[in-house]
């Protein structure tokens, strides 16, 4: 089984990397971009029995820093 964890910066936390990507997109000639924020995707292959609460514990203990980041868990097909 595969689960995807998306880690993103909380609203209000400055994202200098997102800003740099934004500038790079515009310097390629693309226009109409309002904002870019960068995050991280973590794919986890696991046994089917892994509980949602264990996944959440992994996220809050290690995969995301809850001071600055949020996480979202998505069960992949």
């Amino acid at each position, binding site marked *: 089984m595969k689960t995807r964890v998306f880690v993103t910066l909380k609203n209000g*936390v*400055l994202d*200098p*990397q997102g800003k740099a990507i934004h500038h790079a997109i515009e310097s390629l000639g693309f226009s109409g971009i309002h904002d870019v924020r960068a995050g991280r995707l973590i794919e986890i292959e696991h046994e089917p029995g892994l509980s949602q609460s264990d996944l959440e514990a992994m996220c809050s203990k*290690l*995969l995301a*820093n809850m*001071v*600055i980041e949020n996480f979202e868990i998505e069960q992949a097909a």
Partner: protein
Amino acid sequence: MRAAVIQFPGSNCDRDMAVAIRQIMGAETSLVWHRETALPDNLDLIAIPGGFSYGDYLRSGAMAARSPVMQAVVAAAQRGVPVLGVCNGFQILTEAGLLPGALMRNAGIRFVCRTVQLKVENSQSIFTSQYDSGETIAIPVAHHDGNYFADAETLDRLEGNGRVAFRYAEPVNGSSRNIAGILNDSGNVLGMMPHPERMIEDVHGGSDGRRLFEGLIRQIA
């Protein structure tokens, strides 16, 4: 006097830190590998050095903060043993929950490697007693992720309790309220991005870092 410097894969200021502690404090200093589950007995100081532990994978300091030795470091810190975290060491201490907030990518994206002016905000701590409050000192920084972040409430609490030890006296990395170093609530844990161990004799271009270690001798002895 006994001290330990923790070594992680990717630490690179561990030896400089050990030299500073031995030379200035005269402490018997052991290097402790991250896989150890116990620390030497009767430590007077634990130092978490700079570097790029675990290649900065996931987040700077994230993996190191979960390594076996850190449980012993957290327990020692809770017993009141002085803990000094410099640069990556500061990142590790926040990731381990010994200090609040987080260190994010520098606001200018670039790695910053130069000597900066720091203002000593609190000269009452065990780490800063040999400085004068409000004094400006020159200490080098070398980091990519030194942009200190905490929510406004945490920042107010840090400032209100005199827990901001050092502040940048010039723009460096976008840190909230120019914070360069903070203390924990009980004052025995200091995390700072600048490297005092790299400024301890004249050939380094200055010796302003020396007094941090000198101050510790007086407090510990």
